């Protein structure tokens, strides 16, 4: 079972990973959480659906996403 870890302090909340990139569509920007740089970090809504394809990591500019398997 793959596990996605999003580094909230590194994420700049650009939303590139949330826009039709994830085949399972399980990434969102958290509307009510703000990191110390003032950005809304991304979050995985349902980790069980994740297949570990790495598409979110490929488009992440920081990279603020780590995937473990």
């Amino acid at each position: 079972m793959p596990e996605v870890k999003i580094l909230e302090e590194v994420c700049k909340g650009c939303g590139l990973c949330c826009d039709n990139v994830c085949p399972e569509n399980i990434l969102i920007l958290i509307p009510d959480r703000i990191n110390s740089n003032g950005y809304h970090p991304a979050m995985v809504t349902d980790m069980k659906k994740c297949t570990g394809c790495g598409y979110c990591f490929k488009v992440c500019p920081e990279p603020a996403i780590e995937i473990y398997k």
Partner: protein
Amino acid sequence: MKMIFGRPAGLTETLQRYCPGCGHGIVHRIIGELLVKLDIRERTIGIAPVGCSVFADEYFNCDMIQPPHGRGPAIATGLKRTRPECIVFSYQGDGDLAAMGTAEIIHAAARSENITVIFINNAIFGMTGGQMAPTTLPGMKSTTSVKGRDIGKQGYPIKVCEMLASLDGPYYLERCAVDTPRNVIRTEKALKTAFAHQISNKGFSMVEILSMCPTGWGQTPVQAKKWLGEVMAEYYPLGVFRDLSKEGK
């Protein structure tokens, strides 16, 4: 559990000072991965440009030099000729390469210097505030072309890959983009090929990468990504413009 995707050892832990949604970070990550994958990190010298990525020396975990504006290929030529065992790459933006550094890139390509040039094309001068660059599309708005680029006054954009493909010198030229996972994977392959050609002493290789500049374009990151795919990639077609390895050279 083993990490299968994450920050590569070719990048430092420094947080990158790019705007949200900027394409520079994706290309940095690809280069950082390649430095480790090809096992060249210890003998690589990178050339940082003038532009948003002027602090690239803080982000790449290899030796870096920061030359004057546009002079990356000239410095890379000197480095490669004096230290042929080193892998030299020049990382340049479109203001750096297509405006101030036009002479350097053309002559480095014509001499077929054994270097790799990574050309980030975001159709705008990003760092200075979104002014019109030689690569700005016709009709595209910028802070110095507020009604859109007028072909009659400001002329046509420079298509660098097509221009260099008219020379006999370059060994490998390709244009990629970083808007979708598919295009990012293509960019990874193109950069790997470009570095591999330099390692086997084939000659000049350049990869042009169409990249998003949401702040300079006045769009959200997601809008910028769509605009790149729909408008910019139409004007700058993606593909391989020169690959002499396929001709057996």
